[in-house]
């Protein structure tokens, strides 16, 4: 279980997160909020890219606070960043291999993981030798998700997975998310709340750096504030 307790993060004198607490068990959890609410900052704090001023982050009871990013990834957290962060001159296959090559647990399961991600995104199997940088945005997103899944993670974090994608690809990505959550705990931040609520079990609403609401996907979909502010109903 990934647990965040009373997390406070600031950039210099500007505090971004205020006493944020959340848990992600064997489920998929959404993190919603307007631009600038602190969603990416929270992800960066979990990944050790940003150091909090106070609070605790644990994975299966072990503190992640003092670990470097590469150690946190090795402990079982994988991320699909908003900007995809692929290796543009490497082929699709090389990108996928980097997903597991530096995680001893995943490296042993290389072929098994490769079959798993090809089953999820068959188009990647046809593009194995294509440099990742020459692919379309949607395909790059698939490579990014597949690369994260190659790590055989305990928790998969997806930061705005539908950002900048055409609607048909967004549907495909969320369809993939439903498959992924069968085996992995998922934390997804998303602007497309309507689509995301169909794919998650629970959700948190982050506003002005504070958790404003936490409930099941069904209850959030029926909440007036959510319907008005995020679903435009």
């Amino acid at each position: 279980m990934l647990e965040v307790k009373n997390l406070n993060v600031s950039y210099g004198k500007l505090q971004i997160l205020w006493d944020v607490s959340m848990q992600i068990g064997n489920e998929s959890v959404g993190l919603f909020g307007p631009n600038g609410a602190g969603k990416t900052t929270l992800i960066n704090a979990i990944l050790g890219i940003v150091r909090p001023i106070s609070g605790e982050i644990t994975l299966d009871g072990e503190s992640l606070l003092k670990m470097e990013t590469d150690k946190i990834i090795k402990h079982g957290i994988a991320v699909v960043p908003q900007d995809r962060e692929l290796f543009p001159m490497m082929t699709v296959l090389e990108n996928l291999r980097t997903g597991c090559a530096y995680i001893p647990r995943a490296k042993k399961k290389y072929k098994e993981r490769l079959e798993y991600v090809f089953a999820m995104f068959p188009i990647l199997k046809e593009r194995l030798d294509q440099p990742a940088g020459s692919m379309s945005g949607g395909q790059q997103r698939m490579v990014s998700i597949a690369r994260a899944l190659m790590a055989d993670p305990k928790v998969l974090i997806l930061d705005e997975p539908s950002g900048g994608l055409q609607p048909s690809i967004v549907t495909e990505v969320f369809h993939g998310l439903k498959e992924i959550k069968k085996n992995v705990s998922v934390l997804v931040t998303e602007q497309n709340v309507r689509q995301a609520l169909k794919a998650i079990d629970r959700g948190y609403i982050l506003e002005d750096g504070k958790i404003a609401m936490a409930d099941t996907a069904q209850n959030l979909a029926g909440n007036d504030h959510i319907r008005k502010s995020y679903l435009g109903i």
Partner: protein
Amino acid sequence: MLIPCGQYKPARNSSIRFRDLITMINSILSKFKQKNFLIGFIIIIAAIILVAIYKPNVLFEGLQRSALYALIALPMALLLGIVDIVNLAHGEFMMVGAYFAYFMNVQFGMDPIVAVIPALFLFFLFGILVYYITFKHIIGKEPLSQLLLGFGVGLVLAEGITVIATNFPRKLGLDYVSSSATIGGFTFGTFEFVYVAATIIILVGLQLFLKKTDTGQAALAVGQNPRGAKIVGINVQWIYLLIFALSIALIGAIGPLFGTRYTIFPGVGDQYTLKSFILVAVGGMGSLNGVVLAALILGMAETLVLSSLQYGKWADIIYFALIIGFILYRSHQRQVK
């Protein structure tokens, strides 16, 4: 479209390897279909044939000179082209390596070729030390910091050697460097083929390291996207340290090879830093083969000009004119794209 895991049948390993081979051959053939590449290739081959017919000595000397340039540029190509660190003290590390070989020869009678092995280990450790003291603190900072730091490290090394060994030029008197061979009435030096052999060994070694090992792939990943590398579990700081130390080990070990043939003095590395920097830029960042090809073209051209009694002093002008022409051509290509 999702396919259930059970329905997916992976390709067999042998077919993957065969496909890789076909892809590689297609990739090479497709290069020849590109008009510019084909024209360039034909011009280079024609030039080499012409040179071989009219000035065979230029062919051999040009090859040897090109190999020396490529040899010295390859460690910089690894550092600058692969992980994006500019080390302006590159030539000075080679100079220190050459002084190390000189010292070992004078004091202990060690042959400079043998001195390559201890130099490799010692300069690897020296690289680690220099990295921790200096370059570690400017990784990811603006390029000007790296340039100034490299310049400063180079000055410290050159002045350090001046203090220890004075700036008096030194040369090892080795008989075997004057060895020569005669083919069809044409005599040429044979020792310099050591540079050709060393270039091939380092080029193949680095290619294998980068393509076939996880650490090499990690270095490529860090060079292309350090943030992306972090989030796949690569220890980015360790990769920077390793590649920096490896680059210093290689250039430090090239020093003894350089010292066998050339006179050494504290400022001897300067021009090689500049030439290496240019070769990496012309050859293409991240392309080790490109650096060797660039060295071959520029080394041949320089030797051809040097071979002329009338225009010999124009060699550097021709060298830099070719580079300016190449940069203008690339800039034009980018605008066309």
